[in-house]
C-alpha cells in the first residue's frame, strides 16, 4: 500500500467526519482469485456516501465478486474494504445485502414474511422469538415492495419477480445505510423492475447508498447516478455523466457489443435529461 492510499492525517479525518459523511464503501487494492486465476486485480474504489451506484462490466468481469469479496464472502488475496471508514464487523448493522437469486434453496420451508424477518435478526438479536415490533417492520418492508398480499406464501411458489422483491424487502428490513445488491434486476419482468427502481430511488432520496450489479447498459444511465466500470480491473468510476463514456465502455467491453451503441445513446439521453432538470 502506498502512503497516498492510506488514510489521511487524523486531524483531517476528524474534520471529514464532521463535515461530510464518510464514503459508504471504500475498496483498497482488492485482488481476488478463484483457483489461481485472478478475477479482480488491484481494484481501488470509493463510493459516495449516498446515491444509486451501478457496477457494470462484461460477464466474468468480477462484478459480483467485488461485492462478495467486500462482504468477506469470498477470500481476498489482498486488499481491504472499509464501510463508513470501518471494517465490516464494526458496522454490520448499517450494511444490507441482496444476494443473487440462484444461491437460494427455493424449496425451503419459509414464507415470504419469514424471509423478510431474517433481515431483522441483526436488530433483534439472535436468540429467542422475534418481537412484534420486528414483525411489523418486516410487514412494512413487504408492503413497500408491493408484496404485502403474499406474506404467507412459500417462497418457491412465488414468481421470479416476486421472489426478487421479497429479497429486496429483506434488505430493506435491515434498515441499513448502504445496500449491496447482486443483480437485483436479473430475471424480473418490466413491472417488477419498475417497482424495484422506485424503491431504490426512495432509498437514495433518504440519503442511503445503493450499490447494484447491473447488466443492462441501456437502462444504467437512467437508473443510476454513479457507475463503476469493471473488467477484471477498474476501468472507470465516478458520476455517471463523466464515466459512462463510449471510451470507457469500449475499454471494458472491447467494442464487441452492438448494445454499446444503444447504451451510449441512452447515456446521452439521460445526460440531456439531467441537464434539463437542472436548468
Amino acid at each position: 500500500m502506498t502512503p497516498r492510499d492510506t488514510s489521511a492525517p487524523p486531524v483531517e479525518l476528524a474534520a471529514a467526519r464532521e463535515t461530510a459523511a464518510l464514503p459508504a464503501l471504500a475498496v483498497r487494492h482488492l485482488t481476488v482469485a478463484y483457483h489461481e486465476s485472478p478475477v479482480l486485480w488491484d481494484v481501488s474504489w470509493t463510493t459516495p456516501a449516498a446515491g444509486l451506484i451501478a457496477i457494470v462490466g462484461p460477464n466474468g468481469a468480477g462484478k459480483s465478486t467485488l461485492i462478495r469479496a467486500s462482504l468477506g464472502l469470498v477470500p481476498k488475496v489482498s486488499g481491504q474494504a472499509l464501510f463508513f471508514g470501518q471494517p465490516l464487523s464494526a458496522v454490520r448493522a448499517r450494511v444490507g445485502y441482496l444476494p443473487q437469486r440462484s444461491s437460494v434453496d427455493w424449496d425451503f420451508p419459509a414464507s415470504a414474511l419469514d424471509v423478510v424477518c431474517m433481515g431483522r435478526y441483526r436488530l433483534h438479536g439472535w436468540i429467542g422469538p422475534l418481537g412484534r415490533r420486528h414483525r411489523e417492520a418486516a410487514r412494512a418492508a413487504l408492503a413497500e415492495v408491493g408484496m404485502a398480499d403474499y406474506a404467507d406464501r412459500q417462497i418457491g411458489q412465488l414468481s421470479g419477480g416476486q421472489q426478487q422483491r421479497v429479497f429486496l424487502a429483506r434488505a430493506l428490513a435491515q434498515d441499513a445505510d448502504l445496500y449491496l445488491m447482486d443483480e437485483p434486476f436479473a430475471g424480473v419482468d418490466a413491472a417488477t423492475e419498475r417497482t424495484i427502481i422506485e424503491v431504490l430511488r426512495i432509498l437514495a432520496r433518504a440519503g442511503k447508498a445503493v450499490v447494484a450489479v447491473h447488466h443492462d447498459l441501456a437502462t444504467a444511465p437512467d437508473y443510476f447516478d454513479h457507475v463503476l466500470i469493471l473488467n477484471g480491473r477498474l476501468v472507470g468510476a465516478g458520476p455517471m455523466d463523466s464515466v459512462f463514456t463510449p471510451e470507457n465502455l469500449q475499454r471494458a467491453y472491447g467494442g464487441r457489443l452492438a448494445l454499446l451503441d444503444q447504451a451510449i445513446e441512452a447515456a446521452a439521453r439521460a445526460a440531456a435529461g439531467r441537464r434539463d432538470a437542472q436548468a
Partner: protein
Amino acid sequence: MGAHDAAEIPEALGSFLAALSLGLGFNATVVVIGTTLLGLAAGAVGAFMLLRKRALMSDALSHATLPGVALAFLLGVALETDPRALPLLLAGATATSVLGVLAVQGITRASRIREDAAIGIVLSVFFGFGVVLLSYIQALPQGGQAGLKTFILGQTAAMRVPDAELIGAVALCALLVCALLYHPFRLVCFDADYGRVVGLPVTLVDLALMGLIVVVTVIGLKAVGLIMVVALVIVPAAAARFWTERMARFVPLSALFGGVAGWIGAARSASLPRLPAGAVIVLVAGVVFVLSFLFAPARGVLADAWRRLRLRLVTVRDHFLRAAFEQLEAAGTGAAGSFALADIAEDRGWSARHAGWIARWMAARGFAAHLPDGRMHLTPTGREAAQRVTRAHRLWEQLLLVQGAGRIGQAHRSADLVEHVLSPAMVAALEAELAARGATAQPMPPAPERSRQP
C-alpha cells in the same frame, strides 16, 4: 409375518395399549419413555440437518465412532484400567465423531469436494481405520474383543434407567437449544452467506448444530443402535416435510413424528413377541413417512396429483366455455344459439375424441347440452359461467395491453394462463386497476384483434 394365533391378538392389543400408557412392565416403560424422548430430540435436530442438506451426517458420525472406541480400548489397555469401561469407550467415540465432523467441514471448505462426497470419505476412511485397529486388537493378548464393535451399539430393548435418564437430559438440552437458536439455525440452513453478511457467526452456529447431532448420535448409538439413530434423524424430518411449508411448524412436527415413532414402536415391540424394538421403531417411522408421502395435504403425492388434476379440469372447462362463447359471439346468434363441437375442438386444438370426452363431461356438469341435430348449446348456468370466464379473460388481456406488456399474442397467452385462477375479488381488482388507468371496464369487453393462428 405374524406367527400368532387369533387368541393372541386381543391379548396383544391389550398389552399394546398398556405399553402405550406406560402400564406394562418396568422394562417396557423405561424403553418407551427413552425411545420417545430420543425420537423427540432426534426429530428436532434432524429437521435442521435435512434442511442443511446433511441428512447422512449422522450415518457418517456413527461410523466414525468406531476408531474412537478402538483407540479408547487400546488406551485402557495401555493404562491398565478396564478397557471395556463404557465412559472411556463413549469418550473415544465422541472424540472421533467430533473429529469426523471437523473433517467434513474442513474438506468441503478447503477443496472442491462436495459435502456428500466429503461425508462418504470421512465415513469410509474413519470406519476403515477403525477396522484396522480392531484387527490389531483381535491379535492382542488382552484383546479378544470381537464384540468391541457391538459394544457401544445399544440394544433398544435392553435400555436401562441410567440410559433413559441420559437420553432425557440430552433430549431436553437439544430441544432447548433448538428453541433458543431457532433463528440462527434457520438462517444458516437457508442462506449462510446472508447470515455471514448480517454478522451471524455462521461457523459457530454450524458447529453448534453439528454438536447437537454428535450428541444425539452418540447417545442414540449407545442406547438404541446405529441404524435406528440414523433413521430417527432422517425419517421423521423427511416425513414432516410433506405436511408444511412453514419452518415454524416443520421442526416441531418432525420432533413430534420422531417421538410418536419411538412411543408406538416401543409399545408395539413390547406387545408382540419377536419384534426387535429398534427395527419396529424405524418401521413405524417408515409408515409415518409413507402415509405422509401419500396423503399429506401440503406436499403429498396424492394431494399434488389431485391439485394438478383439478387445475387441468378447471382449465379445460374454462377453455370449453370461452370457446363456446366466442363461437356464439362470432356467429352472432346470441348466447342461446347452438354451436358445433368440431369447431370448438378445432379452435382449441383438441382431438375429436378428447373433445367428445370433454363435451360429455360438460353435459354431466350441466354447463352444456347436446341438441337433437348433433350440435350443442349452453345451458343457462353454462351461459353465465361462460360469460364470467370470458370477461375475466378479456379484462386481463386489456390490462396487459394497457400496461404495455407486449404483443397481443403474448397478452392472450398470459391471459389464458391466468384466467383459471382469477377469483371474483381479483376480477374486481382488475376492473379497478383498469379504471385507474383510464380504460373502461365494459360488461363484456370486445375480443382484441389478433391473428387467429391455430
